């Protein structure tokens, strides 16, 4: 109740602020500005309060709230319990709202100093009220008996043993029983990454709205130039945080989820990559506009797109339109959320682009003064290539929608689509990241360009020749590595020169070094990884992947749910121990594998447990029988497959996912004596056990290996059995076998190093741009090198 009221009050306060700001810049009224500020701060306090309240409900296990019940449980450690705040849609929208509020406070102060407050905050409060509207529809404070009225609402006397109840309407005698335990957090999310990653990602998502806000504010004010300077540090901030969020997600997938890689071109991953690419490309064109006043329209378009793509991505991943095409299965949020999200895209897109179209004519035409050999042109091409990559990824991610419209049937593109389309763009981007740094503003001479690139070019050629000599044969990879190496060496050289001059200005060069390292890391770790699946009998050594000797030592429990598999890895003279784990959730019997990684500077040795095969001594003779068929084994033992026994299943147990048993009825004959026996397959839900059929006639036992019932034609039902005498085979040593997938990821550290370098570059740039924006009228533009 309280939570819901707070959401409503906050919505009202933010709307008042929105109106106040509108009034301020249309009428120039100072009093309305004060009202707007108060209203915004009131809204902020209310938002902070309902978020704290939700957190309080989670921490105190108030399972009478559907959201708390749905995502948390009493057995979660506190950090994970806190993270259930944003485990579901309602909560992640709350988090988004909270961050929008907080960034809004910072934005207000920043803009007030620079005279942009009323327009910027008008747009910002519009965004904030849209998010709050979403929370009014998808209420995180819904009471559980309102979600399940039929199941939980009761009338009449309350039983003496019922303590977990609440009065819904005491006058009418309606009460509700509520859960004492929550459903808990998805085991896949139960690790520390869940605590960090969404927070950073949502900060990034939130800051993507800032360029939009500034662009619209610029249009409202008919200010087509200076808004860029004010918006620039925020745009870089957005690129830095969202970029960090994306790569942390990749690291999470790599390190914990055991997907084998850090990027899978999944819609959820793509949906944060698309706005990031748009944002990065606008960072480049903004730089150009700040410098020479060009790209006025481009910057408006890109800044508006940053936020629209965030909304579109949210729509793709949160509305259920992608259906079966993503590993991240998102719960369909209902029609309301679908239309609201679609409405947001139309509203904010229409507002931004509509305003842009209206102002288009009056925008000053800045004559293009630069030549093709200018930094402006390189920046433009670079931004264009980055945008094109975003376009391709958007098309690929939207493929289920596109094919649905075109063919009436949705289908998704293979991940090959993304590689195919982005690789040529990656090559162009890398080359430009090198050339662009060597070019001067307005115009460069061929001489200066050649002079600048001579050393980097020699290094690049040597480096690439080295790669070819080392065994790289794939032409596209050679070209990609060449261009990435070129970007690397140019930026190292340029960066060094700037750094020795004024370290503050080295942000761009450092960020580009990061990109080049990332690209090289992509080539080595994704294209030249080496993978092998191997069975490791306990205690025996097996050599794989050219020089890694693996020995499975044994299994050991880590805690109630997790088992570790102790594996010794011998490589050269070095000996390592790895402990990949499996986790079998006690709650729902799901099994999850967690890899272990040996980080060896130049490569990662990555090992994932696939399965453990415990010997059961049933490796006797294998026989396949159709229904009614007989076979005679050694010692004249004859066996006939009579029928299946599905009695247990007909009780519907299997459908409930519970335990069930299937029987195979057999007739055993020896020396004229007959006996009916039954072999069983028991599925406890967690594991399948086989109980052999024994007869008094012989020591031979029959165990089910495979069953193939055929309901349409029962005569075609088939069974595979193993026939063995346990007396004879029990002498064999019982050895457990661990099956693992091992892979070598060469130079994967380049990916992480590249990311860190990129972010450092971003941070340096933010610092510099903030200082510049502070002295807005003061021209302190020195050449970048």
């Amino acid at each position, binding site marked *: 109740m309280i939570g819901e009221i707070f959401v409503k009050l906050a919505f009202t306060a933010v709307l008042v602020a929105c109106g106040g700001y509108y009034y301020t810049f249309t009428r120039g009224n100072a009093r309305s500005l004060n009202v707007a500020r108060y209203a915004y701060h009131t809204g902020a306090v209310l938002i902070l309060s309902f978020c704290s309240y939700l957190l309080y409900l989670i921490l105190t296990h108030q399972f009478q709230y559907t959201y708390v019940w749905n995502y948390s449980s009493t057995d979660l450690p506190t950090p994970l319990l806190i993270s259930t705040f944003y485990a579901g849609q309602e909560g992640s929208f709350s988090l988004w709202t909270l961050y929008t509020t907080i960034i809004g406070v910072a934005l207000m102060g920043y803009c007030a100093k620079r005279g942009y407050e009323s327009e910027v905050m008008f747009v910002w409060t519009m965004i904030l009220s849209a998010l709050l509207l979403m929370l009014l529809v998808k209420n995180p404070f819904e009471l559980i008996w309102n979600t399940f009225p039929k199941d939980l609402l009761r009338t009449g006397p309350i039983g003496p043993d019922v303590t977990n109840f609440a009065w819904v309407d005491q006058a009418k005698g309606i009460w509700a029983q509520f859960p004492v335990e929550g459903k808990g957090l998805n085991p896949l999310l139960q690790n520390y990454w869940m605590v960090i990653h969404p927070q950073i990602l949502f900060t990034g998502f939130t800051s993507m709205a800032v360029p939009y806000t500034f662009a619209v504010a610029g249009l409202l004010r008919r200010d087509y130039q200076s808004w860029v300077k004010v918006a620039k540090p925020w745009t870089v901030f957005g690129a830095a945080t969202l970029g960090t969020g994306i790569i942390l997600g990749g690291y999470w997938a790599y390190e914990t989820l055991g997907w084998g890689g850090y990027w899978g071109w999944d819609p959820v991953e793509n949906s944060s990559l698309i706005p990031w690419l748009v944002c990065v490309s606008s960072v480049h064109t903004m730089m150009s506009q700040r410098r020479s006043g060009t790209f006025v329209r481009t910057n408006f378009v890109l800044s508006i797109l940053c936020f629209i793509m965030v909304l579109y991505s949210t729509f793709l991943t949160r509305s259920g339109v992608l259906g*079966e095409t993503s590993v991240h*299965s998102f*719960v369909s949020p209902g029609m309301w959320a679908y239309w609201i999200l679609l409405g947001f895209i139309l509203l904010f897109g229409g507002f931004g682009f509509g305003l842009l179209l209206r102002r288009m004519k009056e925008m000053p035409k800045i004559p293009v003064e630069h030549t093709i050999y200018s930094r402006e042109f390189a920046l433009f091409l670079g931004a264009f290539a980055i945008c094109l990559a975003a376009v391709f990824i958007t098309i*690929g991610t939207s493929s289920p929608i596109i094919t649905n419209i075109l063919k009436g049937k949705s289908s998704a593109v293979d991940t090959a689509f993304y590689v195919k389309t982005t690789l040529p763009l990656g090559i162009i981007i890398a080359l430009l990241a090198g050339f662009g740094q060597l070019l001067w503003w307005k115009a460069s001479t061929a001489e200066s360009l050649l002079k600048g690139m001579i050393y980097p070019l020699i290094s690049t050629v040597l480096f690439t020749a080295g790669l070819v000599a080392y065994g790289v044969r794939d032409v596209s990879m050679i070209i990609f590595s060449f261009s990435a190496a070129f970007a690397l060496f140019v930026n190292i050289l340029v960066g060094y020169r700037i750094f020795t001059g004024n370290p503050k200005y080295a942000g761009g060069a450092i960020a580009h070094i990061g990109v080049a390292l990332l690209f090289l890391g992509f080539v080595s770790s994704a294209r030249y990884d080496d993978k092998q699946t191997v069975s490791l009998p306990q205690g025996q050594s097996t050599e794989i992947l050219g020089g890694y000797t693996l020995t499975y030592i044994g299994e050991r429990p880590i805690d109630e749910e997790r088992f570790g598999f102790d594996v010794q890895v011998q490589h050269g003279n070095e000996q390592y121990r790895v402990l990949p784990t499996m986790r079998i959730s006690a709650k729902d019997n799901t099994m999850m594998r967690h890899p272990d990684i040996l980080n060896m500077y130049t490569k990662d040795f990555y090992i994932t447990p696939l399965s453990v095969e415990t010997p059961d001594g049933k490796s006797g003779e294998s026989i396949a029988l159709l229904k009614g068929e007989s076979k005679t084994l050694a010692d004249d033992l004859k066996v006939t497959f009579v029928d299946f026994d599905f009695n247990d299943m007909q009780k519907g147990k299997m459908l409930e996912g519970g335990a069930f048993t299937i029987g195979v009825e057999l007739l055993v004959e020896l020396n004229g004596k007959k006996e009916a026996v039954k072999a069983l397959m028991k599925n406890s839900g967690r594991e399948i056990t086989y109980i052999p059929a024994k007869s008094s006639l012989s020591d031979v036992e029959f165990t089910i290996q495979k069953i193939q019932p055929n309901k349409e034609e029962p005569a075609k039902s088939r069974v595979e059995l193993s026939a063995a005498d346990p007396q004879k085979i029990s002498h064999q040593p019982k050895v457990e076998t661990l099956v693992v997938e091992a892979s070598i990821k060469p130079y994967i550290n380049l990916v992480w190093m590249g990311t860190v370098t990129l972010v450092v570059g971003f941070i340096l740039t933010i610092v510099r741009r903030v200082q510049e924006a502070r002295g807005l009228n003061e021209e302190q533009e020195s050449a970048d090198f």
Partner: protein
Amino acid sequence: MNMKIIIAGIIIVAALVFGAISFVDTNVEYTDFQSAASTHKKVQVKGAWLRDRDASFDGTKSQFSFYMKDDNGKEVRVVLDGAKPNNFELAEAIVVKGRYQDGYFHASDILTKCPSKYEADPASVKKTL
């Protein structure tokens, strides 16, 4: 200036054509086992795991094989390159990506859909009372 526009136009058109070709090329159609059997293209099929039929992992080939029923009720053996996926038991629906060959579906990729587990449903609320 005109030259620039022409060049830019050519680049954009080329990029779009390239994108469109790649799109058609890599598009993996949703279909059922019936039509998967009549094509050699990579397709994806949605269906349910048949829990009562044999499912096993072959450690030597690193393949997991199981039986699956598509939405039209056709039952087919699926051989997946790789181990049994996480959350397989929980999946209320699965999507396999691959090709149909020699009487079985050779899957290179699998998606498991387990929404019901994390969706509020009356049966689960009763369990936690």
